[in-house]
């Protein structure tokens, strides 16, 4: 599952995204989570926070479409203290805020990094996009890696249809596998189609209700973090 590109993170065009901070230390790894509305992005972020918060210094940036609900959900679930969660407003265009004009998100990430610079710098910032469509992907100027979350109830033909999120994300998560028998989705077919679209890029089948829960995705994030700090 660990398919890190050794030095593959593309050229940065923005002032904050250089992998090394002004003081010479390595900045936090930034991982984006995108995907259609209701596929389980926020639930995955919450589960990731619970799984990783004792090992790493974490923060989350949410991109709600018209409310602060995602940020408030994370606060209510108390997955992280409030100072580690920031909300960005996206002006009716969630994909614009993560791809075409990333300035507000970069600012939110930087502010979080700055707030924790002295006492335990951040290791990882998760940037959750507002629920959007299958073409929404993160700019490489904003995140170092991206996870695209779809769910089996959205239709088992989504991997076959492809699109930038399905084909190019660094990790494809097929969520809510526990629902597959109830909605008539064929997981084997989804796996085959995903392999066809993605080649060697990894796919994780996930049910947050199972005993395994978010573990496979958390493991992938751990590998990414290990690769990131190894290059420091």
């Amino acid at each position: 599952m660990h398919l890190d590109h050794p030095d593959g993170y593309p050229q940065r065009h923005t002032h904050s995204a250089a992998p090394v901070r002004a003081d010479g230390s390595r900045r936090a790894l930034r991982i984006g989570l995108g995907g259609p509305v209701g596929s389980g992005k926020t639930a995955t972020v919450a589960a990731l926070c619970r799984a990783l918060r004792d090992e790493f210094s974490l923060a989350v940036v949410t991109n709600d479409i018209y409310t602060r609900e995602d940020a408030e959900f994370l606060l209510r679930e108390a997955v992280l203290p409030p100072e580690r969660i920031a909300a960005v407003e996206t002006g009716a265009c969630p994909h614009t805020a993560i791809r075409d004009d990333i300035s507000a998100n970069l600012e939110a990430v930087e502010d979080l990094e700055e707030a924790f610079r002295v006492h335990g710098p951040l290791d990882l910032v998760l940037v959750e996009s507002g629920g959007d469509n299958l073409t929404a992907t993160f700019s490489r100027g904003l995140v170092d890696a991206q996870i695209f979350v779809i769910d089996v109830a959205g239709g088992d033909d989504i991997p076959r249809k492809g699109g930038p999120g399905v084909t190019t994300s660094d990790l494809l998560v097929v969520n809510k596998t526990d629902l597959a028998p109830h909605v008539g989705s064929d997981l084997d077919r989804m796996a085959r189609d995903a392999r066809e679209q993605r080649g060697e890029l990894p796919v994780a089948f996930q049910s947050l209700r199972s005993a395994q829960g978010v573990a496979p995705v958390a493991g992938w994030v751990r590998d990414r973090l290990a690769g990131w700090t190894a290059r420091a």
Partner: protein
Amino acid sequence: MTDRTTSPAPAPSPAAGPATLLVLADGRFPAGGHAHSGGAEAAVKAGRIRDAAGLEEFCRGRLHTAGLVAAALAAAAALGLDPAELDAAADARTPVPALRTASRKLGRQLLRAARAVWPAPGLDALAAAFPRGAHQPVVLGLTARAAGLGPRDAAYAALYESVGGPATATVRLLGLDPFEATAVLARLAPALDDLAGRATAAAHRARDEGAGVLPAASAPLLDIAAHQHAQWPVRLFAS
């Protein structure tokens, strides 16, 4: 009169042509504007914008108030007036805290984009002096200067942005016919030309007499609505 010997040197004659202005004024310029409606969201909710005619009236009012003020500040910054003095002048002309916050946020976002697109020592100095962001029109003027554009270009960019934002937002909020919304912008063009001239003249006057002489036209309804809009629990736009 204030001693201006410490002010930056007068702007050199603009080195960049119209194509550079197109890049700066493009609605897709990645400086955060897409998340702001320029007051249109509040006006739509209040029923003051219901159609293209309402949008045109709204934009005309905005142009002659907030638009002119922003344009004159931007032109003065492009002309080389002291950015700190202009920033204070912008504060004085922005009484509503929500709009001050939005303007500084957008200024910070624009500065980020500007430093990547037209790197210049003046922009680095501005970022160092205002780590939390200077007012957007001031940043816009310094960006124009860094791009080799002149004060009139900066005024045009500020004016176009002051109506382009609400027009795009109204298309999203009302499902307004995008052709009609763009036709509104085209009908406003003569007003933009006129106001760009006035803003540029005011900037030249401010170079000799100080930022106090810059226009201070206010739009109380925009201010009140912006203050209320900032408290809404559910909204599509940040301002």
